[in-house]
C-alpha cells in the first residue's frame, strides 16, 4: 500500500491500465462466448480459434520484422483480433481460408495503416467482410456435423425468419445459443456475461451498445417484415451477430468516436445501417458491414461533436455578440 501514499503537488491519478491490460480484459470477456462455441460446435471450433489467433500474431510479428519496426505483439491486440475473427467464422470454414482472413485483417487492415491506433476500420470485421465477399459460400455454410451426426442444418435463425416466417424459430434457443450460426454469436447469455465483465472493469461504457441496440430495435419495430411485433424484434436482436457486434466490435477504441455525444451518434448510425441491411438488403445479416461503414464515418462524427472547452466561448455565440 505504501506506494499509493506519494506526496506530490498536483492531484495525480495513478492507474495500471495499459493496452495489454485492456486487451486482456477483452480476452477474458470473450471466453464465455468462445467456450460455449467450442461446447456447442465441437473441437473443430477450438482448432479454428487457435489457428486464427496464431496466424494473426504470426503475421503481425513477421510484418514488424520485415519493416524493421518495434515488435508489437506484446500488446495482445492481435490475439483479440484473432479471437474476434474466429468467433465470426462458421465452424465448417476451411482452415486455410481462416488463415487468409487473419493475414488480411492484421497486415492490410491494421499494420499497413500504421498498426494499432491507426487502423481505419475494425481489423477483425475487415477480415470477416473480406472473407464474406471472397468465399461467400464457405462463410455462409452453417451446416454442422458433430460425431458424424448433423447437429444443425442450413440456415441461421435470421435466414429462417426471412424465408419461413417467425414461427419457424424459438427465441429461447437463441438466448441459450442452441442455434446455427458462427462460433461466437449464437449464445446471447454468454455474450452478455462477457459484456457485463467489460462494463464492470470499465473497459467499455454503455453508450455505443445501448444506442446501437435501441436504434436497431426501434428500426425493426417500425420497418421490419412483421411490423409492431415484439417477438419479431427480440428474434432479430438475438438471432444473429448483433449482440457480439454491439458489445465487442462497435466498441473498439480505435475505430469508435472519442466524444460521448459522438459515441451515441455512432451507435445510432450502426443501428440504422444494420436495420437497413437486414430489412431491405439481399442478406439476412448485416451487422459487420454496418459497423465497418460506421467506422469510416468516425472522423466526421468526431468533427461535428467536438465538446466545448471549459471557459471558452462558442464560435457562433462569439460572432453573435460582436
Amino acid at each position, binding site marked *: 500500500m505504501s506506494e499509493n501514499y506519494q506526496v506530490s503537488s498536483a492531484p495525480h491519478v495513478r492507474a495500471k491500465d495499459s493496452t495489454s491490460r485492456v486487451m486482456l480484459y477483452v480476452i477474458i470477456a470473450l471466453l464465455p462466448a468462445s467456450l460455449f462455441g467450442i461446447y456447442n460446435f465441437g473441437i473443430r471450433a477450438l482448432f479454428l480459434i487457435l489457428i486464427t489467433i496464431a496466424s494473426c500474431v504470426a503475421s503481425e510479428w513477421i510484418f514488424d520484422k520485415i519493416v524493421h519496426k518495434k515488435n508489437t505483439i506484446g500488446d495482445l491486440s492481435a490475439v483479440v483480433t484473432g479471437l474476434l475473427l474466429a468467433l465470426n467464422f462458421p465452424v465448417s470454414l*476451411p482452415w486455410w*481460408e481462416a488463415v*487468409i482472413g487473419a493475414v488480411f485483417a492484421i497486415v*492490410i487492415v491494421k499494420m499497413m495503416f500504421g498498426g494499432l491506433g491507426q487502423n481505419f476500420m475494425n481489423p477483425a470485421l475487415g477480415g470477416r467482410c*473480406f472473407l464474406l*465477399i*471472397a*468465399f*461467400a459460400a*464457405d462463410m455462409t455454410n452453417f451446416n454442422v456435423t458433430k460425431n458424424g451426426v448433423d447437429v444443425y442444418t442450413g440456415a441461421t435463425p435470421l435466414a429462417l425468419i426471412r424465408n419461413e416466417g417467425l414461427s419457424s424459430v424459438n427465441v429461447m434457443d437463441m438466448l441459450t445459443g442452441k442455434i446455427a450460426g458462427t462460433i461466437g454469436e449464437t449464445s446471447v447469455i454468454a455474450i452478455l456475461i462477457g459484456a457485463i465483465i467489460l462494463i464492470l472493469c470499465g473497459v467499455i461504457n454503455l453508450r455505443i451498445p445501448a444506442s446501437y441496440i435501441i436504434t436497431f430495435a426501434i428500426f425493426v419495430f417500425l420497418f421490419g417484415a412483421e411490423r409492431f411485433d415484439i417477438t419479431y424484434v427480440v428474434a432479430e436482436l438475438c438471432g444473429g451477430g448483433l449482440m457480439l457486434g454491439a458489445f465487442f466490435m462497435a466498441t473498439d477504441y480505435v475505430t469508435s468516436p472519442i466524444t460521448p455525444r459522438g459515441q451515441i451518434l455512432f451507435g445510432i448510425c450502426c443501428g440504422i445501417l444494420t436495420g437497413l441491411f437486414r430489412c431491405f438488403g439481399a442478406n439476412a445479416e448485416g451487422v459487420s458491414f454496418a459497423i465497418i461503414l460506421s467506422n469510416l464515418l468516425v472522423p466526421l462524427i468526431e468533427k461535428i461533436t467536438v465538446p466545448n472547452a471549459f471557459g471558452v466561448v462558442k464560435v457562433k455565440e462569439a460572432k453573435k455578440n460582436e
Partner: protein
Amino acid sequence: MNKYVERLYNGVIKENPTFVLMLGMCPTLAVTSSAINGLGMGLSTMVVLICSNLLISLFRKIIPNGVRIPAYIVIVASLVTVVQLLMQAYMQDLSKALGVYIPLIVVNCIILGRAESYASKNGPIESVFDGIGMGLGFTVGLTLIGLIREILGAGTFFNLPFLSAIEGFTPITIFIMAPGAFLVLGFLVAGMNIIRKKMEERGTPLAEPAGCLSGDCAHCGQSAMCTGKSQVETKSADTAAK
C-alpha cells in the same frame, strides 16, 4: 542512351502511366478482371496512342493554340472509331468484354496527356516512340493487374486452367470484383516504388520530372497547389543545379 530507346524506357519504367503517373485509372480498375481483357485494353489504347501522337506531332504547327484540345479530341476520336469498328469486326468477344471502355479511350488521360506534353512539342518519330513506350507501359500494367486478378479470383491463366486445376482450389472471388482491382493496384504500385527506390540508390536517374507531370492540369494531382510559376522556377533551378 539512344533517344528512342530512352523514350521506351521512360514509358515502361520511369514514367509508367499506370504505376507512376497513375493516369487512366478508370479502364485500369474496370476492365482488368482478366489478363486477356487487360491486354486487349492496353493494346487498343497503345494503337490509338501511337497514331494520335504521330498525327498530332505532324499537325503541331498548324493547330492554333486556342483550340488545341478540341483538335486533339477530334483526332483521337476518329482513331478510336477506327479501332472500335475493327474490334467489332474481328474480335467480337473482346469488344463485348471491354464494352464502353473502348469508346472512352477518346478521353483517356494518357492519350491527351501525351499529346499535350510531348507530341505537341516534339517531332513525329520521337512522338511515335513515346507512344510505343507509354502504350507498352500501360499494356504491361493492365496485363499484370489482370493476370494477378485472374489467377487469384478465377484460378485461370489467360483463360487456361492454372490454379483451378488443383484439387480443392476455391477461387478468391473478391479479386474479380471491384475491391480486388484496388487491392492489386495498390500492391503493384507499392512494389514499383520499392523497385524505383532501389534503382535510385544504385544511381539510376529516376527523379520525378521537374515541372508538369502530364502537362494536363485537369488530371494532375498537384494542380490545386500549383501556381504554374513555382513549377517553372523549380525547373530552372534544377537546370541551374545541373
